[in-house]
């Protein structure tokens, strides 16, 4: 969902207009306006501007790599199997990239937000989403990211990105997102 907000942010800032179509890599999610709407309701959404100045420091040189659709750092979601909190091999590069970014940018803080599908008790799902977030956080800790740069939290089934009940919808919702402070 942060990816969607980023795409929105990009479009608004018009700093990388040419890339807005490649932003469609996350487009399947972008079609769901849910999280954009949330962002507008939240006063902290003004944080886009703060990020927009770019933090530099990782040598990419062409603005904020967290927002560059060509950078792996623009990928923010780690997907999980049903009833599982194990980070699958295909998402390890994403986690490693963010771990590397955090180590190079010790002033940045990341929140790992766990999510579940819509089935069952809200509080139990909150705990299941937490377990997914902790799983990503643990991997980053092992990769050397200091504890004080990381926070694992859960949205459980409260902020469903896909609101249907198909297998594909459920798979989309079994997810942890990496969000940076101010996003």
């Amino acid at each position, binding site marked *: 969902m942060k990816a969607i907000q980023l795409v929105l942010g990009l479009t608004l800032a018009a700093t990388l207009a040419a890339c807005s179509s490649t932003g469609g890599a996350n487009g399947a999610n972008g079609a769901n306006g849910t999280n954009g709407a949330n962002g507008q*309701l939240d006063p902290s959404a003004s944080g886009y501007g703060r990020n927009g100045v770019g933090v530099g420091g990782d040598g990419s040189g062409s603005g904020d790599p967290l927002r560059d659709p060509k950078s792996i750092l623009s990928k923010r979601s780690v997907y999980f199997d049903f009833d599982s909190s194990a980070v699958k091999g295909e998402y390890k590069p994403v986690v490693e990239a963010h771990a590397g970014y955090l180590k190079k940018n010790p002033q940045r803080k990341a929140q790992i937000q766990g999510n579940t599908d819509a089935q069952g*008790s*809200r*509080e139990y799902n*909150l*705990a299941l989403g*937490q377990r997914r977030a902790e799983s990503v956080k643990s991997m980053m800790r092992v990769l050397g990211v200091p504890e004080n740069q990381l926070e694992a939290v859960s*949205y*459980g089934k409260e902020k469903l990105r896909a609101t249907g009940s198909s297998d594909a919808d459920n798979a989309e919702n079994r997810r942890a997102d990496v969000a940076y402070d101010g996003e």
Partner: protein
Amino acid sequence: MLRRLLHALAASLLLTLASLPARADMTIEIVGGGANRHVIALPAFAAEAGVNGGITPIVRNDLQRSGAFNVLAPGVVANAPSSPGEIDYPAWRGAGAMSVAVGRVSVSGGQLSVEFNLMDAAQKKRLTGGVVTVPVSDSRAAAHRIADMIYQAITGERGVFSTQIAYVLRTGRSYQLQVADADGAGAQTLLRSGEPIISPAWSPDGSKLAYVSFETKKPVVYVHALATGARYAVAAFKGSNSAPAWSADGSRLAVVLTRDGGSQIYSVPVAGGEATRLSQSAGIDTEPDYSPDGSRILFTSDRAGGPQIYSMSAGGGGASRVTFEGNYNVSPNFAPDGKSFTFIRREGGRYRVMVHDFTTGQANALTDTSRDESPSFAPNGKMILFATEQGGRGVLYTVTRDGLTKTRLATTGGDVQEPAWGPFPR
């Protein structure tokens, strides 16, 4: 002249009805158990037509959905008494009535008074009665109080019709924490947010709600005073903070924190402060609920695989498993007498309200719906409030302890979730 007045009254009533927002009416579904119900006659109270919503229609719904009464249809006997002397006892007995409630309404100086008497149909003896006076705008409160008096006179148990419920109303991206009468009417919004609100929990004295709000982009537990609207974060530790439960004396809250990694149960003072860890497992421990005597905590844990319900001392320490049947048992809530608890079991893809009896060790399903959530006992233990899904949106239901009477509460449009039944008023 009188006829013209009545016509004018009827017309204005129609206008009032037409201008009300679309809302789902209360529906009461009686599955069985008619033989055990007390049959009561409740002819319209004199002059109640002048009261918006009337009095006896509200009393009727209250008594009917309690499962303890069968209220005779208004026109079944051609006798319209408003005082005990006017009751045609043989006629009402002939229609099956065991008791007859009669009354009259008067309005004076902004105050509404309802004088009523409940008479035994066989012995013609007064069972209860009195004069209930409220501000005119609170006419529903008068009806609920009369229903409570009738319920107590007949069953010997305290009625819950004057209690309140809390729940979350979701409309699009907007969340409202609301408090309403036990029948779903008279909703008032305590908190409005663009981020989710879950898990409202009543303080034992009914003056405060604890709940989880995501307004700071993460789950944080707040305490909110109903009378003043004053609120503060009581648990906002690193990670997620959720699932508040009040201790029996209201001095502490059990909460679920993740500051040490997994989701575990802690205790915090109600004013906020240091958290003491209560549960110890490598798995998920969540959804704590204190026993009414304050000695124990029921909670959900997946320490043995799937989620099951466990019990531990209120001071923490070792836990014993309570549910063994089924592979998904969650959301425990103690009955007020501590002898049973309600919870949700998933079975064959359906999530249903259950009651586990500590004496027999048996659990029974009370509902036939399939997306039930968040069950909580009425303060007299005779009904359970829960959320389920109908037509793709959340609705509230009550079900009697025997499962035989189910009522969908009247609520305005939107997705209604996370209900919690409040305590008796003090």
